[in-house]
């Protein structure tokens, strides 16, 4: 564990009955960088992410945030420590307005309601959702919901952001918007753990990449190392 690691996992293990979904994973994410996590379906990527932010209870291993042991803490405690996340299938609050969706993240804030509303509106603006700010979450398209999730994450300003398949089912224009926003945030000091199948975007965004297969890390390194790693090529069956 190095001093500038914002997130570290040691031997993270998660079982579902007889199935070992995550099998002793060691990850290190340095502050202010983007760590891409790739692997075929069922490799354990989302499961690992759920263990990290407390949604799943891992059977083995530890999770460290800024050096502090947060294993088995509740999701909201971990969120309060500055961890935000998005979900593979967007989990926005469908019967609440877009503004309320964002405000939910800042309920403990000492800022006034007006200040928070202004803040929320500005983030919605950045995501081109301002016009719909009083609509309910369920009235957005899939792509818009992904943008809303990102705006929600930006609202409570976490240092570590976990993104689960942010580009899945998103059209190219939206994709570019998302990539720009992510890079902006990275440059302002945020750290990202990014799970995706979209290799083009992963290569564009990641500082380092970790490759999962059957719950284990089979490769880890910079973009070029991963592209040429034989184990990775084999696992992905010649994917480029």
């Amino acid at each position, binding site marked *: 564990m190095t001093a500038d690691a914002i997130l570290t996992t040691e031997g993270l293990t998660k079982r579902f009955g007889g199935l070992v979904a995550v099998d002793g994973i060691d990850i290190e994410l340095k502050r202010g960088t983007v760590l891409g996590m790739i692997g075929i379906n069922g490799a354990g990527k989302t499961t690992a992410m759920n263990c990290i932010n*407390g*949604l799943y209870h891992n059977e083995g291993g530890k999770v460290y945030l800024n050096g502090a042991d947060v294993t088995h803490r509740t999701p*909201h405690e971990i*969120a309060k420590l500055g961890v*935000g996340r998005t979900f593979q299938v967007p989990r926005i*609050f469908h019967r*609440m307005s877009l503004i309320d969706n964002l405000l*939910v993240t800042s309920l403990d804030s000492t800022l006034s309601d007006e200040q928070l509303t202004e803040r929320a509106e500005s983030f919605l603006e950045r995501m081109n959702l301002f016009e719909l700010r009083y609509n309910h979450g369920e009235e957005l398209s899939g792509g818009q919901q992904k943008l809303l999730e990102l705006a929600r994450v930006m609202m*409570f300003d976490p240092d570590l952001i976990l993104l689960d398949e942010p580009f899945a089912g998103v059209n190219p224009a939206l994709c570019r918007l998302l990539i720009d926003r992510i890079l902006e945030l990275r440059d302002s000091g945020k750290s990202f753990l990014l799970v995706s199948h979209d290799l083009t975007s992963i290569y564009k965004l990641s500082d380092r990449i970790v490759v999962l297969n059957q719950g284990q890390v089979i490769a880890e390194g910079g973009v070029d190392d991963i592209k040429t790693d034989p184990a990775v090529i084999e696992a992905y069956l010649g994917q480029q």
Partner: protein
Amino acid sequence: MSSLTQIDEAQASRIRHTIWFGLIAIVVVWFGLMPTLGGNLSLYFSLMLWVTMATAFNIIAGFTGYMPFGYVAFYGTGTYATAILVVNFDISPYIAIPMAGVAGMVLALIFAPTLRLGGIYFAIVSLSLAVIMQRIMGLAPDDLTGGSHGLNLGAKTNRQDGYYAMLLVLVMALTTVTWLARSRLGKALKAIRDDAEAADAMGVNVQRSRLYAWLMSAAFASLCGGVQAWFTGALDPITAFDVLVTAKTVIYAMAGGLGTVTGPVVGTVILVWVDELIWREFPILNNFLLGLIIALLILFMPRGIVGTLMQRFPRMRRLIM
């Protein structure tokens, strides 16, 4: 309709509050004057009771997303707590009724672990617990709870004061829900209702927030029970823990629209009126029509009258609570 989008938030807020407080004022004046105008006290008391029950139920169901099918347990506890204190311990109803509210909250605390379950399991367990309580009340020592015959407040019954106590509880409930709808706790609860895990991941203290909602909801239900005991003077295990109490509460609240503030009020008023009408004209068909209305409601207007309106007319959302 385009003019509605141009209303800014401050204006919309003012309109919302004017409409709502206007309604509350009408309610207070109307019910307050009823006794002096010689209206049917029982009917209006009943109306106030059901509006309060539906509104309180809304807190845990509409706002937080939990459907306790054993909700009557709190009502029954309040009834019995008041009756026991007044009859057996000679405590004044003015003190016994608030104590009933406390009793309800204690029960809620005891049952709080069931909130972990959620969904249909929570509903079924809640129903089971209410039935168990009903049986226990029948089994408990007769000199304490009156056994299967129940208790009678006798001379301590006070229809006049009971009526106004109900009005007070009603106003408290409506005020609480109004505050909740605008408050941060209210937003936390709605997020929990929509997706409890996501709310958790966004930093909402799910356990604590829903416990608050649970306690509030229980307190009002038990206050209702307590005031009812004072007003009618008699209670027994069957009527105090009747599953139909929960059923009516749920239907009245849903008919108007869970999750909205005006919904349960509107739903209760309309359905109690309809119930009265049917019962008077077609007593035999009463249950059949009640069942039919429930079925039609779930099939065609699951979000209730107000809820469906808010869904169809998004612009209206900012003007109605």
